């Protein structure tokens, strides 16, 4: 067995496979399927200071090698998370991160302050890239000054590991990554979904109630790989790769591009056991290529 541990800021993950926010609920939904303590970590779903009902149905459209969603951060709010969900999560022996989102900088700060008090939460993933909310969300992540402003504000109140999740819906993701790193981020995760659209030709109507939504799945993987590679070249902080990872080979490609860990998202919908298969597959790859540790292949793309 190869050494699968990897480090994100000051957190040693037991393996480099995490689950992406919004695709794994609070983890408890997978209890019937497997022991989620086997994961490197989980990012629980997008949490906002106030409860959100999310967008109207329909919220999903299947597309070629992927899907669009426009859930819109449906969640019970940070106080509910802290009092109801968090006590359940303490039973898991894995690193739990909370994806924090908001409509205003004050919202992000208030939410992060609540999470700060929860001992068993390893860190937050600041979501400045949700394309499915009318205010805030992606708007913060698509310009350097606004990205820097929200990251700096949260950094002042949040003491543990702060990952910042970047939007691919930008002209130059490297510039945003630099702004975020310069404002105190401890790690970067990318990519969030790509803004897309589906139309029903028969009804001549958009499929989603919100008209546009976020594209995920293997369709986005080449874009995600390219962005991870570009950002990893330009950043000193760890990068977590996300985007269309369906198997261990996909995950390996992200490590080679420079990711220190990966998040598996949409694949969880199709195969609830996919993360375990990916962990085992990474180990097999490392053994087959005679690497003793996953750290040996991070950023080791042969050019």
């Amino acid at each position: 067995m190869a050494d699968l541990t990897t480090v994100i800021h000051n957190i040693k993950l037991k393996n480099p496979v995490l689950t992406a926010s919004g695709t794994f609920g609070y983890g408890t939904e997978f209890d019937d399927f497997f022991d989620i303590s086997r994961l490197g970590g989980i990012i629980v779903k997008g949490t906002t200071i106030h409860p959100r009902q999310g967008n109207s149905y329909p919220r999903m459209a299947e597309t070629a090698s992927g899907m669009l969603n426009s859930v819109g951060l449906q969640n019970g709010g940070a106080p509910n998370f802290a009092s109801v969900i968090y006590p359940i999560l303490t039973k898991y022996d894995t690193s739990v991160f909370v994806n924090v989102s908001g409509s205003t900088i004050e919202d992000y700060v208030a939410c992060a302050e609540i999470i700060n008090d929860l001992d068993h939460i390893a860190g937050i993933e600041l979501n400045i890239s949700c394309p499915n909310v009318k205010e805030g969300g992606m708007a913060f992540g698509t310009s350097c000054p606004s990205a820097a402003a929200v990251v700096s504000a949260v950094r002042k109140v949040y003491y543990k590991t702060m990952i910042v999740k970047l939007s691919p819906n930008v002209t130059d993701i490297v510039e945003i990554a630099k702004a975020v790193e310069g404002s105190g981020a401890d790690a970067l995760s990318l990519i969030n979904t790509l803004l897309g659209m589906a139309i029903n030709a028969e009804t001549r109507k958009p499929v989603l109630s919100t008209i546009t939504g976020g594209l995920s799945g293997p369709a986005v993987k080449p874009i995600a790989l390219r962005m991870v590679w570009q950002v990893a070249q330009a950043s000193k902080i760890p990068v977590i790769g996300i985007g269309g990872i369906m198997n261990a080979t996909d995950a390996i490609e992200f490590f080679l591009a420079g990711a220190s860990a990966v998040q598996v998202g949409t694949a969880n919908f199709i195969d609830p056991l996919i993360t375990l298969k990916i962990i085992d597959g990474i180990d097999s790859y490392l053994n087959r290529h005679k690497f003793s540790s996953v750290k040996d292949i991070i950023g080791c793309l042969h050019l």
Partner: protein
Amino acid sequence: MRKSVQNLKVIANHRLNDNHSIIHLQVDGQLENINPGQFANILVDQSQSIFLRRPFSIHTVDYQKNTISILIKEVGEGTRTLAHAQVDSYLSVIFPLGNGFTLPVSKEKVLLVGGGCGVAPLMLLAQILSKDSNEIDILIGARSEIDLVELDQYILFGKLFTTTEDGSHGIMGFVTDHPLFDTKLDQYERIYCCGPEPMMKAVAAKARLSSVKCEVSLENTMACGFGVCLCCVTETTQGHKCICTDGPVFNINQLKWQI
């Protein structure tokens, strides 16, 4: 029964007509209790254009042989592929999912209303209600006679009524055009309904008017089937609820239907 993801062997595929099949799947080990109304989310393997699983009601359960069956109506590529699943091939199935219908505590007179392929969960429901000695009337509506399947099976469990839009079988019109809905609805203590949403809303409106308890089984597009993608929500009196985990069966009073 706890939900799990399993590779199930197709042991039989009965073609009912040009666009309906029933596939029988062998479960490894002992099947535990499955509630009528629960569903299975099935992977359409080796498909270029189909990315997500397809949800189907569990049609019947055989606890002796440890098999489940799925009624499939071909509506698109996914259903077409699954309807033609080869015997001895394997399908990846996540099941059982969802809540299922509420069963009467003591003997009741109940009405089962199915529309089109919405009859799928009513077979298992009728079997269980019949075993518990409930008095069952079954009303099945379809576009045309060709869409009415397994009438010879449903009739084993109670009185059977049909409607077709073209009048080719039973009363011509929608299910709610059937005389059962005229004056006699309060003879039932409970109505179970599954079919297209406009049909269920029409049935729900009649049930509410007659103050009869009514449960409907919803079908929204979903990505996961077990409550994490949050795509299949419906509006309820308690906000957005996932039909895959809080449903698919809802009491009509939980729903914010304008009826």
